[in-house]
């Protein structure tokens, strides 16, 4: 079932956190929960190991740095798990960077953005992503990783 781990070459994914996510667990815990970014990363790492893939982590507060990182994922990683934070809602540059990277990207959010301010209801990056997962706290990342790994959870095709 875990085909990704059974092919000899371990697939590699990038987990990218945008602005202010380095403050997780320290700011607005009512919205974002008490978990730190480091503890979420540890969960993702454990899930990756279970799924037989490898992951690397990147966080930046800078839009330009995120664009550069995503560009450089081209041809290097099998997919990107991206929580772009507030840039989600207005960064055309990030959207173009995702398109240019030609790498499947899954958009994740800790909170349910549709329960919040109207400006958060629109995602500029969603149309160029594979899909979106939001509202499940730190578990959004776990679901996002499972979503990225195509071979998993496909009982209807077997």
């Amino acid at each position, binding site marked *: 079932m875990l085909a990704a781990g059974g092919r000899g070459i371990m697939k590699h994914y990038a987990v990218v956190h945008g602005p202010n996510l380095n403050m997780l667990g320290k700011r607005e815990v009512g919205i974002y929960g008490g978990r730190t970014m480091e503890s979420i990363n540890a969960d993702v790492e454990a899930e990756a190991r279970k799924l037989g893939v490898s992951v690397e982590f990147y966080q930046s507060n800078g839009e330009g740095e995120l664009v550069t990182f995503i560009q450089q994922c081209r041809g290097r990683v099998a997919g990107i798990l991206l929580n772009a934070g507030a840039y989600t809602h207005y960064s055309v540059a990030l959207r173009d960077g995702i398109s240019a990277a030609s790498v499947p990207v899954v958009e994740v959010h800790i909170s*349910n953005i*549709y*329960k919040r301010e109207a400006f958060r*209801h*629109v*995602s500029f990056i*969603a*149309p*160029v*992503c*594979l*899909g*979106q*997962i*939001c*509202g*499940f*706290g*730190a*578990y*959004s990342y*776990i*679901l996002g990783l*499972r*979503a990225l790994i195509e071979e998993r*959870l*496909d*009982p*209807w*095709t077997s």
Partner: protein
Amino acid sequence: MKSFLVISGPNMNLLGTRKTSIYGEGSLEDIHRGLQARADELGVAVECRQFNGEGEIIDSLQSALGRFDGVIINAGALAHYSYALRSAIGAMLLPCVEVFISNVHAREEFRHTSVLAPVCVGVIAGFGKKSYLLALDALANLGSA
């Protein structure tokens, strides 16, 4: 054992026979089989239903409390305009996860808004039939993370 209700809305009974480039080749029965297998793995129960009628979905949601621990809903086109469905979800006092097979944000503008999303725990969109399985993972995990 936790038990979850899975509701698919209008036209989902036609999965596999229409717009397969958007919705994929598998049928709704394939999805239900996949959910059953995943539920067995997770040690939970699922009951899967499909309705074309808005009223029937509302009836089903209203009777879910006490029988189920949560709901997965793919309301199809109703997601984008059914305030009656939104009220029913808001009233039912059970966690609800909204799913879409396609990436609704990559499609027509009227599909970019879900009137149900604000009363759901969260949304999973764009992963084909896998969206349902991930929603089941999410519901089964609620309260434990």
